[in-house]
């Protein structure tokens, strides 16, 4: 196939969830031997688009055209049949099976009814050699790093003669060197005439690797242009748009003395040299991309993860936070990022979830819970958080996301913390609940609580925080005051590495 011929075209693709359009009239062409980069903020519709190409979702409008013929993609197997392969950020491989077995799982070459191991390894070696990577095909996959696993996914896709490769944020969890190697593989694939859709949060990658760039914002395609015509600044402008929201009822809170001081904190493998100070009444925003190290810092402060180095001081005194119990003793609460896995016990009623960390306070005698007092307190908080439910005995798992999040907030306000860390407190919840959570955060700040607000949502951080730290790859790379918090500058600081003199010369793309 000639370079530049469209292999797959999306024409006017629309997708709705209930009443909401998550993709509106999207056109996208994936051409043989070219890389098409897809960019957009969280929630712009990138992953929905990937799922449509992978056959997970069916579009509600528009059509998918392959080599000039309209097709329907029914499920993942059908996508493969149409020559489309999706490489996920965390490939779903079998950790205990070898590299060769993973590439040929379910279709191992056979001779006389038994698996022909020699032929399988031979073919696997050939595939990896074609990608110019050197991995022992007999190794179990669990011995390999994330980048190598992605390579194996690519090899598998090639062995299935994929003509279209969708790479969904492959670089967000791997090192820079690994990413460079992955880009070399992408170049090899281009020469073989594969059409590639490349999705990334990192702006330099989008522009460097892509031949064409499409930018989505709020379910719509705002621009498609050759990468050469875009600059980092214009890309960010397209992603962010011009809308400025004044949704956040931040009240003015008097800012007092420092309660928490963090100095040169490092740990979790990549967080390095993080220092900051948090004062009473202050809301400190942590902004950055997913995987930038913000949650890891929060978890070190809460005793979930052990720091490798650095110092944490509360009220000027150095402290050791060995467990969540220690953190709670110091007056620290953490509202974790994943409300289903880490935050709530979904089988519990609202009451039991809200009081779980402080159940000891309702206990008399041999750990006997005073149900009446517990119910009063939980009911009181549910009321203040305006949780919509049939009552505090309703099972938490049956609540809407916004109401679950309010229960979670009640749960972590109940210990009366002095330092409240909120990790993505409004992710995936409706605007009404979001506004109420903002109202509550703002209110407790005026009462002197010191707050760390971790969020991907620029308007939220800019609207709520008194001060903003921007994280990138485990470090604090920028700090903005409330007045200086500029939307585009924040996104740029989080997503764009300023050109490195060593690498700047590399320009073959």
């Amino acid at each position, binding site marked *: 196939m000639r370079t530049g011929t469209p292999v797959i075209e999306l024409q006017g693709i629309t997708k709705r*969830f*209930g*009443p*909401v*359009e*998550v993709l509106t009239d999207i056109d996208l062409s994936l051409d043989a031997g070219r890389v098409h980069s897809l960019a957009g903020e969280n929630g712009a519709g990138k992953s929905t688009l990937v799922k449509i190409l992978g056959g997970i979702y069916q579009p509600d409008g528009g059509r998918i055209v392959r080599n000039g013929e309209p097709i329907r993609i029914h499920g993942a197997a059908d996508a493969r049949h149409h020559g489309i392969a999706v490489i996920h950020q965390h490939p779903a491989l079998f950790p205990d099976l070898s590299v060769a077995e993973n590439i040929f799982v379910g279709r191992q070459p056979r001779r006389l009814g038994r698996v022909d191991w020699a032929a399988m390894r031979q073919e696997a070696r050939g595939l990896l050699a074609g990608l110019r990577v050197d991995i022992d095909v007999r190794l179990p996959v669990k011995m390999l790093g994330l980048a190598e696993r992605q390579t194996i996914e690519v090899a598998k896709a090639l062995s299935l003669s994929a003509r279209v490769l969708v790479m969904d944020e492959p670089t967000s969890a791997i090192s820079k060197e690994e990413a460079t190697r992955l880009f070399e593989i992408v170049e090899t694939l281009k020469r073989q005439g594969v059409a590639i859709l490349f999705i990334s949060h990192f702006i330099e990658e989008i522009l460097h690797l892509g031949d064409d760039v499409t930018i989505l914002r*709020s379910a719509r395609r705002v621009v498609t242009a050759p990468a050469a015509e875009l600059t980092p600044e214009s890309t960010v402008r397209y992603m962010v748009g011009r809308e400025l929201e004044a949704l956040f009822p931040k009240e003015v809170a008097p800012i007092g003395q420092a309660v928490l001081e963090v100095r040169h904190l490092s740990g979790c493998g990549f967080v390095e040299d993080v220092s900051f100070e948090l004062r009473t009444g202050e809301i400190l925003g942590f902004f950055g991309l997913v995987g930038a190290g913000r949650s890891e810092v929060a978890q070190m402060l*809460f005793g*979930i993860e052990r720091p490798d180095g650095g110092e944490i001081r509360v009220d000027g005194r150095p402290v050791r936070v060995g*467990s*969540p*119990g220690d*953190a*709670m003793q110091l007056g620290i609460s953490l509202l*974790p990022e994943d409300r289903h*896995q*880490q*935050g*709530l*016990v*979904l*089988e*519990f009623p609202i009451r*039991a979830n809200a009081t*779980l*960390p402080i*159940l*000891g306070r309702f*206990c008399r005698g041999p*750990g*006997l*819970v005073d*149900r009446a007092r517990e119910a009063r307190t939980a*009911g009181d908080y549910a*009321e*203040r958080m*305006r*949780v*919509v*439910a*049939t*009552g505090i005995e309703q099972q938490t798992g*049956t609540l*809407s*996301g*916004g109401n679950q999040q309010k229960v979670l907030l009640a*749960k972590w*306000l109940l210990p*009366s*913390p002095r330092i409240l860390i909120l990790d993505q407190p409004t992710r*995936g*919840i*409706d*605007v*009404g*609940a*979001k506004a109420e959570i903002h109202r509550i955060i703002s*209110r*407790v700040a005026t*009462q002197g609580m010191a707050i760390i607000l971790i969020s991907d949502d620029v308007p939220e951080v800019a609207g709520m925080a008194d001060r903003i730290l921007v994280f990138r790859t485990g470090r604090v790379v920028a700090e903005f005051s409330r007045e200086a918090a500029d939307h585009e500058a924040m996104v740029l600081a989080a997503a764009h590495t300023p050109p490195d003199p060593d690498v700047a010369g590399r320009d073959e793309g």
Partner: protein
Amino acid sequence: MTLSEPGTAGRPSRQRPRAVRGLVGRILQVREIGLVLILLLLCAIVTARAPRFLEGPNLQQVALSATLVCIVALGEALVIIARQIDLSVGAIVALSAFLAAAWLEHHHDGSLFVVFLIGCGVGTLLGAGNALLVAAARIPAIVATLGTLAIYRGLAIVLAEGRQISATVLPVSYQEVAQARVAGGPLLVWIAMLLTVCFGWIARSTRFGRNLYALGSSPESARFAGISDVRNIAGVFILSGFLCGLVGVLWGARFGTVDAVIARDLHFQVISAVVVGGVSIFGGSGSVYGAALGAVIFAVLQNGMLLLGINQFWLEAALGVAILGAVTFYVFLARRAERESRRQAMLARGASLAADR
């Protein structure tokens, strides 16, 4: 903390409670009521074919055979609720029964109090052994207790040297424990009922109980809430061991003869009772009362089949069918609940996306 909210002093906003359709729906919601109904149905069927079932001595027989399984099932239920399992219960019963009886053999007029102390002490100690392996050394419970099952049983066999301690060498007062009657019922049955209430209370109303449910349904959320898995999991294994020790002493009193191979299949019976009683094998849900009812249902099944003259060989298979039937039913219930909550989650997702736009 004081969170004064002017203007929100009203009642919490209310959704209309989802209507529970009819009696069947309500029974499905409270599992224990369903179990009682099944139990009554079972009794009715057996009585219709063999009226002897309802006669005093027979009923007492059923109650007595249910009690010992029931007491062990109380501890096992808590263990399974915490997403663990204890396979060593039968071995602990045997070893503590044997040691208690061996002491009595040599101290013929020894106090019964000391016998119970020895039995419960040994059980607690062996339970602590399990706790050490599972909670401290982090060996998966199914493997750890499979190991201790063999070790404890082996220890009993070595200590017993193949001999039996029979009724003839044990003091009469010991066996009277099993025959004693209080307020018209056998003492053993009263003990089992008292313990059931007590453990039901532990599970429902104490912090420890709440922690077990939390650890069983979402270990990570429990960790983030500052609940120590080491301490609570250790506690539940020790408690299970204690109950097994107690049952060891009662076992000797009831059967009069103790050797190293008693209670050989007890772990199967106990886990069956717990599962049939509605405790999820994946942890986090079910109740101690359900487990106790499960033990009674099994005792009635066994006795009923005997009365109806059903071939002994069919008995085992029929019990297996009962277990699978119950579990299939619970899986059906769970799937229905999951479908419902997934539907709700989908709606919520739609709403939240709508709001984000």
